[in-house]
């Protein structure tokens, strides 16, 4: 039975917002004195000043438990309270209410390179950064060589960090943090920086850290990273826990809730299109016909479009485009199999997206009815369907049994003929 490493009970964090100086986080003594003086002269003004303070709960009623060795993902929009939670767990700020019990040493990677001093050399910064992250001098000395080789900065060890490239500085910073060996590691969006090869290294490290029985809290926007690395995820919304469950489940609901959401079927209130053709509905489903919005990249995906042709004499056909997370059209496809002009009436067409083609992540579909030569767009609906593709690293995909980052907007499984 795994023991509980992090136990949060009803934590809340309240901030007081002052509207009078909304822009400034700190106050100037000059202004305070001026206000005091003004209030002295105009008593009633004080009433106004008081009412312009507003309480704001950045976090409210957050309770969860994380077991030893678990990798917990925390997702949420900007301002949902992710960073506040990270700050409370790493003791930077105190909660206003509630209590957290942490079993073991906590290290946080809130931002890479915290405490690095540009004037100091790489060697000096390793010691300094290690101390800031909570390592003792002897611990740092014992792991020094390991850190240096992980960061790949041996030749520059005695160069000032200000002469480092940003990639090198990030590598060094992560290397120090990665060798901290805390029982609990908090990672906040660090992976956004660094080149692809390094990201891969980092992910590998995080996974191995969790395999060693350490607990990882991973705070990120990237749904595909969360679904890959984390067993479990918590979605925060407006300072409250909106969802808590397996990473795939939470990611799916989160995407569904976030507007561009993942929806397996679409049916407009009235069919859309021009006088020649209209689309009635579209849906995504698995081979057995059940609607689904999360697919393993190792399974084929079926998209069925129901449309109606109102005018004869043209070769109108259903078409679709697949758009990935970054808005790139991965491919377009149309039912050119329809050679003849199609008869008037309702039709149903199913397109099969083969297994082992797409990369993981969030994808959406544009649905259309078109006729070519001359090209006419009868109906075109943007991003009516969406789905989440997950790579469960079962070993039969393009990435084999490799863990870590696997770049590319598609992930086809190709044949390799290896001559020995």
């Amino acid at each position: 039975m795994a023991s509980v490493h992090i136990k949060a009970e009803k934590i809340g964090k309240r901030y007081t917002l002052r509207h009078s100086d909304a822009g400034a986080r700190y106050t100037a003594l000059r202004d305070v004195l001026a206000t005091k003086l003004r209030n002295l002269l105009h008593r009633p003004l004080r009433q106004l000043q008081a009412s312009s303070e507003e309480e704001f709960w950045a976090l409210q009623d957050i309770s969860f438990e994380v077991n030893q060795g678990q990798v917990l993902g925390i997702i949420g929009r900007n301002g949902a309270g992710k960073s506040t939670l990270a700050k409370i767990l790493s003791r930077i700020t105190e909660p206003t209410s509630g209590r957290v019990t942490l079993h073991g040493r906590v290290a946080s990677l809130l931002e890479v390179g915290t405490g690095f001093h540009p004037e100091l050399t790489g060697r000096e910064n390793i010691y300094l950064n290690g101390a800031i992250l909570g390592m003792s001098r002897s611990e740092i000395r014992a792991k020094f060589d390991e850190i240096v080789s992980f960061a790949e900065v041996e030749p520059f060890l005695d160069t000032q960090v200000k002469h480092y490239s940003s990639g090198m500085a990030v590598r060094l910073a992560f290397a120090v943090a990665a060798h901290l060996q805390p029982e609990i590691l908090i990672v906040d969006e660090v992976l956004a920086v660094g080149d692809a090869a390094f990201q891969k290294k980092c992910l590998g490290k995080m996974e191995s850290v969790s395999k060693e029985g350490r607990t990882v809290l991973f705070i990120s926007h990237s749904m595909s990273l969360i679904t890959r690395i984390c067993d479990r995820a918590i979605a925060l919304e407006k300072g409250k826990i909106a969802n808590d469950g397996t990473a795939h489940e939470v990611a799916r609901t989160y995407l569904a809730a976030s507007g561009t959401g993942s929806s397996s079927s679409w049916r407009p209130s009235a069919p859309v299109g021009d006088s020649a053709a209209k689309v009635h509905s579209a849906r995504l489903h698995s081979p057995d016909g059940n609607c689904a919005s999360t697919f393993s990249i190792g399974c084929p995906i079926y998209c069925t479009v129901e449309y109606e042709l109102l005018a004869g004499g043209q070769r109108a056909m259903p078409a679709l485009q697949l758009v990935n997370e970054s808005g790139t059209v991965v491919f377009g496809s149309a039912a050119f199999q329809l050679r003849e002009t199609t008869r008037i009436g309702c039709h149903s067409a199913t397109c099969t997206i083969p297994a082992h083609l797409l990369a993981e992540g969030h994808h959406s579909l544009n649905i259309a009815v078109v006729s070519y030569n001359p090209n006419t767009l009868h109906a075109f609906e943007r991003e009516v369907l969406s789905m989440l593709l997950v790579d469960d690293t079962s070993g039969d995909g393009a990435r084999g049994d490799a863990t870590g980052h696997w770049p590319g907007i598609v992930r086809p499984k190709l044949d390799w003929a290896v001559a020995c």
Partner: protein
Amino acid sequence: MQEPLIIEAGRAEAHYWRDLWRYRELFGFLAWRDILVRYKQTAIGIAWAVLRPLLSILILTVVFGNVAKLPAGPLPYAILVAAAMLPWQFFTNSLTESSQSLVGNANLISKVYFPRMILPASAVVVSLVDFAISFGIIVCLMFWYQYLPGWQILALPAFVVLALLSALGPGLLITALNVKYRDFRYIIPFIVQLGLFVSPVAYSSSVIPEKWRFLYSLNPMVGVIDGFRWCFGDAGGIYLPGLLGSMGVTALLLYFGIRYFRRMERGFADVI
């Protein structure tokens, strides 16, 4: 397995001193970093620590000792000034450096936990190193004037500690105020300038009329500077009620400095 760490409102407050002890190594590293950075461009860095007090001593000696011809007693006037100028510059350096320490390390404060008092304290330590280096001046002056101080010099470390404490108290106070009121740093040069005149740097405190002497001694630096001079063999001797008054004010300032700093500390990460 170590004991669990509990985070809740007001908790850090309760374990403050234990935490401070636990983070002593970080304190060492931060002080080491500041010293390293300060003297990174070695020649200029160390020269700076010597040059500033040296020039001040020179000017004060020429103006007050030679032009105004203030009485100096048995001590060479330059040593009289140096014995005051060094602790005085240590005090002002500590005040200036520590008041900037939190704002200058804002990225640390908003990202990592440690008792914040480490930062102004390490700034004071850096000033102490400056002080130690500039101490060479007074040694040179003693060689120059062929002057050997008496047994009183053995009490010097005690007055160095007193100087440290009297710098730490106001330092903490100003540091915390500087985070809250960012324009507070404009007041510091003013304090420093005014302080130079109400402290016996350019003159001996024996010129103060007897009836004002105790009131005058409530300035914590008066006790420190008079003590330094006494160690170097100033004939004025120690004015005991004044020294006790100075120490009392130092203790008071230290108490309020720590109290105010700790009260403000909880909010630093949110404000900075």
